[in-house]
Each structure stands twice: as C-alpha cells, then as structure tokens.
C-alpha cells in the first residue's frame, strides 16, 4: 500500500503514535465522524451480504433451499474446472488489453476536449453519448459495425486491401471486438479526466510557455503529472470493472462462439442463476475478489513512483 499518500500517512501515524497527542485524538474523532455515514451503511447493508457470500462459498447452496456446509469442496472443484480456466483467461485478456487502451484513449480525448475551440460543449456531449445510449441499442449497432461482410470497419479495411476478420462470429476475433465496443464507452472516464483538468493551474502553463515549452512538452511535464491521482483512480476502477466485465458478453454473445467470450463474471452468473449453484458461484466470486484485490494492491504499490498528491 505504498501509494504516496498512504506511506506518508503511515509515517504520520507512527510519529503521532509517539506523541499520542491531542491532535491525533481530535483527528481520529473528526475522521471517524466524516466517514461515519459509510460505516453505518457498511454495517447495515454490506457486512451481512459479504459474510453471507463468503459462507455460501463453503456450502452447497442453490438459494432455493438453505445452504449445507461442505467445507472447501467448491474451491477444490474450481481448481479442476476447465471452464474456470477458460473464463478467467478470457477476462484477463480483456483486462490486459482493454484497460491500457481505454486509459490512453480517455486521457487523449479529455486533453482534446479541454482545448478551447468553438463548439466545445457540443463535442463534450458527443463523446459522452455512447455511454448514455442503452446497451440494447449499442449492441444492435455493433452487429452492423462489426458485420464481417459490409460492416463499417471491414469496409474501411478493404480500402487498404485488407480482408477484415469475422469479429464477433469467430473465436479468434470475438474478444478484440468486445474491446472495441468497450472503447466506445470511454466517455465516462473521459469526463472524470476532464473534471481533473480544470484543476491544473493555468499559471503553470503560462510560465512554461514563456520558458518556451511546447504543447506536447507541457502536457507531459505539467498536465499529466498533476492529474496522476485521477489517472490512478481510473486505472484502479478500470481494473476492478474490467475483471468483472459482464453485460456486453451477456447480451451480445452469450459466451460464444466456442466459449471465446465466456468471461469470468458470465460463467459466475450462469452458475448462480442458470445452474442454481450459488455456492459454487460464491466460491468463484471470492477467488475473483482475491485476484482483484491483489492486482489493485499491486497498482497501489507502484503508485508511489508515479502518483503525485498536492494535498499531502
């Protein structure tokens, strides 16, 4: 957890532990007061579901009947389950390729949209649009765009003499197709970047401009470092979200063709609500939880090297 803030924090905590000063007590009281809504909500609405699902993972539970304890059997089955491996592989593919692409594109668009040009409001809306359009409509559209024969993308590729792939219809290209579809939805994180760009002081840019730094140079040495906390946020959230990726695969491909889009959360969902194996689904969920937690902590660990907090 050596996100800079956290490291400094630990140091601060250690220092204050020696003093056990009045200030620490006041801060503790204030801190707890501020986060008290979350604590209450956590105790009221989250502790039970979380512990219940953990318990279910050690039971044979169909939801239809009370669970019966079976020890670690679900986890043992899971290790032997080929579909567990296939679905985890599919999800990791989408995450490792999709998250970096999504991050770069979202930042790029936010930077573009932060340049004051006529129609800025209009463009901001336009780039946000795909996230607003209901998934049933986007799914339908993508059948057109990704159509192997006359879809926009393959027609575009044909201009360069490239024969486009079968996209969603072939096991090899179905995952790249889903990633493309995801990229359409970067509007959400783009808006967050846009908001953070408003906090980059213009004075810094003006000063650097006087020193002769060009746009690209200023972007990399002023803008990006200053918004690293928000980049950090988006990467972590992107990771958490991508490892739980579900909706489009559920609606558009239902896991096919040849299990190539059977993503982890879809397999989990099938177990819970189609096969009525909530116990097994819970075990899958907790394994995913551990995977997400470890990868998040990994990102936190690297954060000290690249995330800059002005507020610390």
């Amino acid at each position, binding site marked *: 957890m050596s996100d800079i*803030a956290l490291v400094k*924090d630990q140091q601060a905590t250690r220092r*204050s*532990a020696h003093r056990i000063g009045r200030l620490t007590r006041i*801060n503790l009281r*204030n*801190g707890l007061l*501020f*986060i008290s*809504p*979350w604590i209450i*909500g956590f105790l*009221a*609405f*989250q502790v*039970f*579901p979380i512990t*219940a*699902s953990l318990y279910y993972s050690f039971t044979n539970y169909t*939801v239809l009947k009370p669970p019966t304890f079976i020890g670690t059997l679900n986890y043992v089955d899971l290790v032997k389950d080929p579909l567990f491996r296939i679905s985890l592989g599919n999800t990791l593919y989408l995450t490792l390729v999709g998250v970096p692409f999504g991050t770069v594109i979202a930042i790029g668009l936010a930077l*573009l949209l932060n340049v*004051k*040009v006529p129609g*800025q409001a209009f*463009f*901001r*809306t*336009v780039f946000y*649009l795909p996230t*607003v*359009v*209901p998934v*049933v*409509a986007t799914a339908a559209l993508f059948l*057109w765009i990704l159509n192997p024969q006359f879809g926009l993308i393959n027609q575009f590729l044909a201009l360069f003499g490239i024969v486009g792939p079968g996209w969603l219809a072939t096991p090899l290209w179905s995952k790249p197709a889903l990633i493309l579809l995801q990229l*359409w939805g970067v509007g959400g994180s783009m*808006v*967050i970047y*846009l*908001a953070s760009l*408003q906090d980059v002081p*213009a004075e810094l840019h003006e000063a650097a401009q006087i020193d002769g730094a060009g*746009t690209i140079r200023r972007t990399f040495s002023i803008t990006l470092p200053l*918004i690293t*906390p928000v980049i*950090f*946020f988006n990467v972590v*959230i992107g990771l*958490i979200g991508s490892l*739980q990726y579900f909706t489009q695969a559920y609606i558009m491909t239902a896991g096919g063709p040849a299990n190539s889009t059977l993503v982890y959360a879809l397999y*989990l*969902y099938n177990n*819970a609500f189609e096969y009525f194996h*909530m116990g097994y689904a819970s075990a899958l*969920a907790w394994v*995913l939880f551990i995977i997400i937690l470890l990868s*998040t902590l990994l990102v936190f660990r690297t954060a000290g090297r690249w995330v800059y907090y*002005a*507020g*610390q």
Partner: protein
Amino acid sequence: MAAQSIPVSGWLSSKRRSQQVAHSITYVLLIIFGLTFAFPLYWMVATSLKTPPQQVVVPPIWIPHPLVWQNYPKALTAYPYADYLRNTLTICILNVVGTVVSSSLVAYGFSRIRWPGRNAVFILVLATLMLPYQVTMIPLFLIFRGIGWVNTFRPLIVPSFFGNAFFIFLLRQFFMLQPAELSDAARIDGCTEFGIFYRIILPLARPALATVALFQFMNSWNDFLAPLIYLNQQSKFTLALGLQQFVSAYGSSWGQMMAAAATFTVPMILLFFFTQRTFIQGIALTGLKG
C-alpha cells in the same frame, strides 16, 4: 464558445499563429473522433425513423428516407411513460442528493484528515467494489425483506445516503489535488474541520461533484436489476423496466426498439448537455485570469 476569439491581427504574431495551427489540428481530430462517437446515437435515431423495409436492407441505409415517425407514438404509449418517468426521476434525484452529500463527507474523511487506521479502512471501502454483485444480491434482498421494504422505493434510495465506494474513491482523489496549505491556513485561522470541508474544499471540487451527480443520476436511470427485484407493482416501475419490457415484446422491429431506446435516452443527453458547463466552471473558481 466566445472563449476563443479569432484574433483580427493576431495571425501576425507567430505565437498566435502556432496556436491557431494547434487549434485546427484539434478541430480536425475532434471532428473525426466525434463522428465515430456520435455514431451509436445517430444510428439509434436513424433506425427509429426508418420504415420497416428500410430497416432490413443490406447493405444498410445510412440516411432514412422518407422519415417516418410512426414508431414514436408506439414507444411512448406501450407503457405508461409519464408514470415511469416520475418514478425514475424520484429515485434518481434522491439518489443524487444522497450520494453527493454522503460520498463527499466520507471522501473528505479519507483525504484531508490524518487519523490512525485510515488506510486500512480505505482499502476496506475499495474492497466492497471487488466482490461481484451477483453473489451479494440475494443476501441484500433478505435484509430489505426482513425490514419490510420490498415493493417500496426505499431499497433503491436509502443506501445511497451512506456513501458509495466508487464515488468516495473518486472524490478522495479530487480532494487530494487541492494543496495542503489551503487547509493548514484555514486551521490556523481557527476554521473547524467541517468549515474547511464546506467552505473551501467543496467549492473547489465542484467539477468533481458535478461528475459524481451526473454519474449517479445515470446509474439510477439505467438501473434495471434492483427495480426488477424489489418492485412488485407495475405502478411503481421505472423507465429501465419499461424499456426492457418493450424490447422483449417488440423484438421484431428494430424501428420500434430504437424509438423506445431513444425516448429512454434523450432526457439523459439533455441533462448532460446542460450540466457539462459545470465542469468548466472550476476554472473561474480557482481564480484563473481569463
């Protein structure tokens, strides 16, 4: 946008000229990407205005001709749009209020006050995002069932008043962008912690708060599963449920489906268009000289 005044004699200065070139490039890029991103919406609206034969032509017709509006009356009357809209807005607005108030308070506690154990608790907050909802959905239902809240809006509204991990994390990051000196100075002036939160940090974080409000509104607007599970009376249904029903019922007509999707989407687009200014206002507040 008046912000960009085309200089009358400015092209003489090389700095201005290079700026203009940069702007032109930006513009071209914006238009190219913009077309790509506007496409889903365009397609949705275009299809909703096509006659059934036009919808099935291969390769597709990009511009419908003639325009037909017949799909819209159907989409608006197939379910009680006005009633569902009222229900949806009730839920959305209360959720936005609840989330913005609670998440900003909690985020402040996690970003601008140092207290022992803060990190561990914060990781716990994040961890609540990491467990797939598919396995916590039913135990959560049991809680609300136990307190007799099923078939009311309460399970859809009340939790938002206790902070949402995603927004807490988001606001925490934004609060950390603000220089520490701001708080220190205020503390020296004898400002209470709540005073710093309310008078200094919140106003500075307005773009972030606007983002949170927008996202929460959209989440509640699109939420389909929770209303499906908790509501047992058609008179309490939301637009997302209505759209889902419409989509499964009028499955054979792309035109009608897209018209329904459009009537579902348009309010969101208008909301975004008129609120996106908030993201710009941040500049004025940080004291930038125009």
